[in-house]
């Protein structure tokens, strides 16, 4: 505690003791249905607090309990332990059934992100209907990432914190089987032989020339 206060010399008053900070973080995470970043929490806490450290303590405290402290991307959330799901039948939310195309598209975005629409189409061998992407965007499971620095500067898609929360993932790096896929070279963007520069780069998904014969599937 003593070196703690020394560290935070700049602050006008000493930060509250860590046990108290842990209580604060507990209350905030408990009250929120959405994950909170340590920054979010820090802004609400008194000056000089260290929510990141408090969360680590809190997480340990909840280990093995009915509720746990889950990391969701850059944020934290309290969630019930998955093994107790059967008690919560009344709280179960009926999730919209996703089409096979939407599920596959989601998986491709998660494992290949940031990924362009043309790359998704290349992997699935079929054009991606607008409705599929729209649905995933609407559910806030995917969002737009940075544009790719290739001709046409196509937009990319990445998965969101909402997605991580939904599937109980700490980060996109924790996707099941990610390492194996990478080792097997299956996450490489391997352009078709002989057509290297032109194909696979023409990301203009809306342009009718992109993929021969698939255009009509695009019209929605």
């Amino acid at each position, binding site marked *: 505690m003593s070196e703690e206060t020394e560290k935070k010399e700049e602050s006008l008053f000493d930060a509250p003791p860590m046990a108290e900070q842990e209580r604060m973080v507990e209350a905030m995470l*408990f*009250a*929120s*249905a*959405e994950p909170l970043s340590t920054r979010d929490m820090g802004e*609400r806490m008194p000056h000089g607090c260290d929510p990141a450290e408090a969360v680590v303590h809190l997480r340990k405290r909840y280990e093995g309990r009915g509720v746990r402290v889950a990391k969701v991307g850059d944020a934290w*959330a*309290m*969630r*019930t*332990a*998955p093994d107790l*799901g059967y008690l*919560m039948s009344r*709280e*179960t*939310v009926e*999730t919209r059934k*996703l089409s*096979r*195309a939407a*599920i*596959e598209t*989601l*998986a*491709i975005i*998660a*494992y290949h992100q940031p990924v362009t629409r043309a790359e998704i189409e290349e*992997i*699935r*061998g*079929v*054009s991606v209907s607008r409705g599929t992407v729209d649905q995933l965007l609407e559910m806030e499971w995917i969002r737009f990432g940075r544009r790719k620095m290739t001709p046409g500067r196509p937009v990319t898609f990445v998965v969101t914190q909402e997605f991580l*929360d*939904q*599937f*109980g*993932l700490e980060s996109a790096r924790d*996707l*099941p*089987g990610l390492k194996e*896929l990478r080792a*097997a070279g*299956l996450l490489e963007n*391997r352009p*078709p*032989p*002989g057509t290297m520069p032109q194909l696979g780069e023409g990301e203009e998904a809306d342009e009718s020339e992109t*993929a*021969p*014969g*698939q255009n*009509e*599937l695009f019209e929605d």
Partner: protein
Amino acid sequence: MAEDDFDQGEAVTNVADRLAAEALIVDVDGFEGPLDLLLTLSRTQKVDLRKISVLQLAQQYLAFVERAKALRLELAADYLVMAAWLAFLKSRLLLPPDPTEDGPSGEELAAHLAFQLERLQAMRDCAARLMGRDRLGRDFFARGIPEDVMRLRKVQYTATLLELMQGYARIRTRDEFRPYVMDRDAIFTMEQALERLRGLIGFAGTWTDISSYLPDAFTTDPGRRRSATASTFAASLELVKEGRVELRQAETFAPIELRRKD
């Protein structure tokens, strides 16, 4: 995996196999494009996708397309494009390489197709694993009664010195550019005359020349007098209409006289 559905790739001999093959054709709408169809066909080879025979697969696909044609099924254009490409690939794989020809070899193309199939299958497996995970709202749950964070919004207003000066300039220039208004001090308006008469008619018990009702300031200057006479006459007509006074004139151009009506 539906192993017994496809016993042999090409020579469909027994009835069950044929039915299965036809079911495949009838189901063409269920495929997510030619790659998906190829992936399904590849399962009949019952081998690791890495060891798949692309040549055999191409032949299966072409046979499928032929059968679809025989059944007069409409195949989407991309299925036909894939068929054409596979026919090309097949010829490349079967014929000895032509040294004069550029471009990738049949083996390279076949390897890439195998890679695509393997990648698609991997993504499918991932999707299945993903959807099989514990899910929020199904297996684990968020706080049931979330307490909303009250947002106290504090608004801070800003302005720059330039804006301040421009604002002031705007007001001052507005004065200079006010719309032109006629100067009316030589006019005695009917409203003014009416007001004046209303105050005076109480005393008009006897016939009096209306010119005597003109305000003093409007009697000397001819222009002002004209204005006042006209407005006073108009005002007297208004009062007649209201039934408060009577007017008379002995003859043309004689003085007009006014009297209170009781």
